[in-house]
């Protein structure tokens, strides 16, 4: 999946959980979910579950721990989609 498509889709997923709407408007590969978007760790779980549902994939515990920014999320989702 290309970068622009993924970022646009991820923006919709994180929208309900992001406290910093300004950072959300400027979301990029380097955006950090916790430090930039101000999503707390509990809501980050919901983000990951919504990502699972959107792309019909299952994310493992160690992948969840790495999924802290947009780049990491895209890498994990793309790797999962290629495995299919």
């Amino acid at each position, binding site marked *: 999946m290309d970068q622009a498509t993924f970022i646009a889709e991820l923006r919709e997923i994180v929208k309900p959980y992001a406290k910093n709407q300004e950072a959300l408007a400027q979301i990029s590969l380097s955006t950090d979910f916790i430090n930039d978007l101000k999503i707390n760790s509990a*809501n980050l779980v919901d983000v990951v*579950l919504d990502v699972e549902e959107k792309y019909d994939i299952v994310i493992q515990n160690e992948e*969840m721990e790495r999924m802290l920014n947009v780049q990491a999320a895209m890498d994990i989702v793309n790797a999962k989609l290629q495995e299919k």
Partner: protein
Amino acid sequence: MTTAAILQHLPYAAPFLFVDELIDIDEETVTGRYTFQPDMPCYQGHFKGHPVTPGVLLTEVMAQIGVVCLGIYLLRDSIGQQFPTVAMTSTQVDFYLPVLPGETVEVKAEKIYFRFNKLKCRVSLYNAAGKLVCDGVIAGMIIHPQHA
């Protein structure tokens, strides 16, 4: 794990233990009860001359039975001597009826998910007449898992 063992693992003590008994528990659901003793200090001020159980305490009963007790049951194979550090991470509760001093309430909860150390449950609280008092969604999380 027996319901008695679950109660022993609860990290609460008086005056902030809000579980008297567990009626039933399995992988998906839990049912428990608590009686609000009329001599609880909160009734002296909530409200002046008109004691009603504070909504935050109803929420606490829902969280202790519906999330913490169920969480202990789900973690039964890995829970050690030391209780892991947990935190309530979100509550969304609607209230329908008051609970007066001395009333016994029953909490029923069902798991929405338990993933990545977060337990999210749909929780309902009923009075002794079986009427719905409040319901909502409560979640909690293990902050520092213990490896015992």
